[in-house]
């Protein structure tokens, strides 16, 4: 009897409600259809146009494309991943220095951020590779590139981390203090883990930006995507086609990592609730 009542209670849903749902579904799928179609058209028209303009030989793509992708993209990801990791570590210490009551330490942090945010990344890369040897320090191109990218992104992330640390509720610190935690333990076990969660989306964003900024180290002969494309393109007399391939690699990497970034962000947001 109870079951009968239950189904009857569901039945009288007003037809208008069903109609509203159906209309909403239809409008959503129409939106998706047009959205996708316009994307395809744009890719074909713009991409194809550029391809035609380059006057490239399709053979070249088949021959050299895989080399650029395999060698170049791998190096691009490696350089970016190592640099963002080092930058994150630098940023933690930078942020702690910037928040320190010790004026000397604070000045060091402030100087670091100011210097590396105040000068062009390309100049910093040149400096590591061309200027340091004159001071007696010769770094291999790969190391010089990673150093410059790390220091530069570390400076930006320092401010991000500082904001993240300040965004941890005051009560968290007070609760830890009330439990008798000394300052260092409190920072390491309570504040930093929560600050890290807060800044993870920003680090992801910076990683995606770094995928493209890492192309600047092509100028100091690091064998990453752009460098490989330029070298192969030059020797095959297909410089524009090679650039187009490099562009496609960066774009694809960005799309892939943005997808993961969005998923990560959504997961973090959900577990916050």
């Amino acid at each position: 009897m109870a079951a009968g009542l239950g189904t009857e209670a569901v039945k009288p849903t007003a037809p208008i409600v069903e109609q509203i749902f159906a209309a909403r579904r239809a409008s959503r799928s129409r939106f998706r259809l047009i959205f996708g179609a316009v994307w395809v058209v744009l890719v074909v028209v713009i991409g194809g146009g550029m391809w035609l303009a380059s006057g490239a030989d399709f053979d070249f793509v088949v021959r050299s494309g895989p080399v650029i992708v395999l060698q170049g993209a791998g190096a691009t990801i490696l350089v970016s991943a190592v640099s963002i990791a080092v930058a994150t570590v630098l940023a933690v210490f930078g942020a702690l220095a910037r928040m320190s009551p010790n004026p000397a330490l604070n000045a060091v942090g402030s100087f670091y951020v100011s210097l590396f945010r105040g000068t062009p990344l390309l100049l910093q890369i040149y400096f590591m590779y061309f200027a340091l040897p004159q001071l007696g320090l010769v770094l291999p191109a790969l190391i010089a590139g990673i150093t410059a990218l790390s220091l530069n992104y570390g400076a930006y992330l320092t401010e991000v981390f500082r904001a993240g640390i300040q965004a941890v509720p005051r009560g968290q610190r007070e609760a830890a203090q009330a439990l008798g935690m000394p300052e260092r333990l409190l920072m390491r076990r309570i504040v930093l883990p929560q600050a890290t969660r807060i800044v993870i989306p920003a680090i992801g964003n910076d990683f995606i930006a770094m995928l493209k900024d890492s192309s600047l180290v092509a100028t100091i002969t690091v064998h990453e995507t752009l460098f490989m494309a330029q070298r192969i393109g030059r020797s095959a007399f297909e410089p524009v086609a090679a650039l187009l391939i490099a562009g496609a690699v960066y774009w694809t990497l960005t799309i892939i990592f943005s997808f993961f970034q969005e998923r990560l962000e959504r997961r973090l947001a959900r577990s916050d609730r």
Partner: protein
Amino acid sequence: MTASSPLPDRAAQPASAGSGYAGEMPGHLGDVMVRAIGIEKYFGDNHVLRGIDLEVRQREAVMLLGRSGSGKTTMLRCINFLEEPTVGSIEIDGLKLEADPLHSRSARHLEQIRKMRLRAGMLFQDFNLFPHMTVMGNCIEAPTRVRGIPEGEAVAIAEKFLDKVGLLEKRDVYPSRLSGGQKQRVAIARALCMEPKVLLFDEPTSALDPELIGEVLRVMEDLAHEGTTMIVVTHEMHFARAAADRVVYVEDGVICEQGPPEQMLDAPQMEGTKRFLRRFLET
């Protein structure tokens, strides 16, 4: 939000060992556990505490009442130096610390403050559980890393206190899965795990939905009747009547009147106390 489960095993029984308790009140109290002398606090030019002396004896439950802005919360926070008093001294279980606002960041002073805090557990209005640790993680973090208790032992202690607040089955859950009342009960267990000499409660039920207040007050009442030394800032009059050994009414940064709960709530002497209670009972 998860539906809150009332304390299953506790809800049934009346607040333990309750009846006839108040009559023999002074007898069950021990020596002085907390002694605040001449506490004054300025926030900038604002003279929030204007000379408070307060002695709390072992096994005594003291409730601080007063209007918002009267200074009762500041007074409580001064006891474990979450606010450094501008003038005065605090003594907990024989360890005495003078306010030293000019050197409040010196390593020596900070270490003394830390030692004081080990003797006082603090409960907050918004619980302040560590969201990135499970219930058990919250409870053993400070015992293992601050007091150096081996993990197995710390877990056993935590199990005992989580059971006491009726939340042992939530041991591996993250705080975001708990209701407000459950969070505050975990916070109480976390504080107890440090085996403090006194518990300080700062409006522990003010952030709770009305239907969740009872479960927290029940735990606190049990603690009071078991002889836990506690100082509570609260607006819950029924709770004060049931659990307090002494009620202290704070007004304009000084203690206006104090006494046993029946006298304070039913027959206050001072004009300020009367006015406060009258307004409170009206609403």
